[in-house]
């Protein structure tokens, strides 16, 4: 036992040192629940936080069920406003905007050259479900273009925009509606077909501090940085649009 004593002493010292190391006041990472379309830009902007990316409607449900988020960034005002009305987040602010695009695999098996080809050609169309923001925006685009009949060519309703992007990038589907920003990371696998500006929906992203957060000050600071030049530049270079001017 005596021979082991130095070992125990060393272990105790090591443990004490480790204790002081972890006890040092350290910036706890924020837990940020964000729309799937923000995956690349948020990770590039700040890799030091914990992210949960998904469909905004799914994230809304998770926060309703008490998920431990500090910040909620939604691809549609509806989801943040629902939580705001329920008192689960503080007042949301708009922080960026986006546009939709039609993407087809590089090999373009269905031969889609324009958005109107969706009506005339047999096509496996992949979109997001109606409750997902991008799925809702997709239906707005189709309504504005008078193309709601192509909804009968939908072969899968995916749970978020990244699932739509993946199915097209892989070539499983012939065409899919995503945000222009989702097409960029897979630009070697997909071709982007533009949607005319007049048919674009108003895609507005909102962000809010979650009321239950234990680090509201840190969360507010993170949102301020996102609204400042650094955050806005990162969004812009990822293809997001600047803040829409408030309509009178």
């Amino acid at each position, binding site marked *: 036992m005596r021979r082991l004593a130095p070992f125990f002493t060393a272990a105790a010292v090591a443990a004490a040192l480790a204790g002081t190391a972890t006890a040092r006041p350290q910036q706890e990472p924020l837990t940020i629940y964000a729309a799937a379309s923000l995956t690349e830009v948020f990770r590039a902007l700040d890799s030091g936080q914990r992210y949960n990316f998904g469909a905004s409607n799914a994230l809304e449900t998770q926060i309703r069920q008490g998920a431990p988020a500090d910040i909620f960034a939604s691809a549609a005002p509806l989801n943040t406003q629902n939580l705001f009305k329920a008192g689960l987040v503080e007042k949301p602010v708009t922080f960026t905007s986006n546009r939709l695009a039609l993407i087809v695999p590089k090999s373009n098996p269905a031969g889609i050259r324009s958005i109107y080809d969706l009506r005339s050609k047999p096509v496996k169309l992949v979109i997001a479900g109606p409750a997902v923001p991008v799925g809702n925006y997709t239906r707005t685009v189709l309504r504005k273009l008078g193309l709601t009949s192509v909804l009968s060519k*939908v*072969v899968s*309703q995916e*749970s978020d925009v990244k699932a739509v992007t993946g199915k097209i990038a*892989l070539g*499983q589907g012939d065409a899919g509606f995503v945000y222009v920003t989702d097409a960029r990371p897979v630009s070697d696998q997909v071709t982007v077909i533009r949607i005319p500006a007049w048919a674009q929906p108003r895609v507005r992203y909102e962000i809010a501090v979650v009321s239950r957060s234990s680090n509201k000050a840190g969360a507010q600071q993170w949102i301020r940085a996102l609204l400042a030049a650094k955050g806005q530049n990162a969004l812009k270079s990822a293809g997001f649009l600047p803040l829409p001017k408030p309509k009178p």
Partner: protein
Amino acid sequence: MAAIFLRVPPGDLFAALATDAALDAILVTLETNVISMALIVVFGTPAAYWVATRSSRLRDLVVTLVELPLVLPPAVAGIGLLAAFGRFGLLGSTMEIVGIDIAFTKIAVVLAVTFVASPFYVRTAVSAFEGIEPTLPDAARTLGAGPAKVFARVALPLAAGGLGAGAALAFARGIGEFGATIMFAGSLQGVTQTLSLAIYEQFDLDFDVALAISAVLVAVSAGLLLIVKLFSRWRSNSTSPIPFAAS
């Protein structure tokens, strides 16, 4: 478990089940799983018999391959199915030329369910065939029965309890399939949206419907487990006491 049944009154649970989403999901799940089970039993039974009556090194390889889906994460199964049967996959591209369309069809769901559920049947079937007292097929052979007749008239009836239990287990796994299906077959109500996929979609849309479908799956799973127990008891009764053991 209890939370699923207690959260909403039973009346509302039934009302939620009467929605199109729930009914379509029940039909899609039944249709695809019945086809999968037919495939699994038709191809799995002879395969299991072959494995059970051989003792070569090849046998270990076959058993490992058959059991692999049992331990693979469903996400890996989904990726594997995409790589094999995706439109640009190893076999998928050929099948598309032949005119068989797999992407986003019920065929994709059947493939996913068959892949993940088959080991449950084959494994149980192998041990059921192995559990047959070897004197019985031997006796049949000395009385002039050929290998086919031994399989059909002796091995099959003796292993029936185990086969039934295996089928029930495989069916239970099949109706719960989620990961491989959502990756490989997508999700469209009435076409590829099975019960598990419907729960996932309804979770954000209408929690009560998700709850109702979950309740159905709990009830069905409990029923299937009970069937497995009954089959197992039947098996132990049918194989022992061994008629010729004393002599």
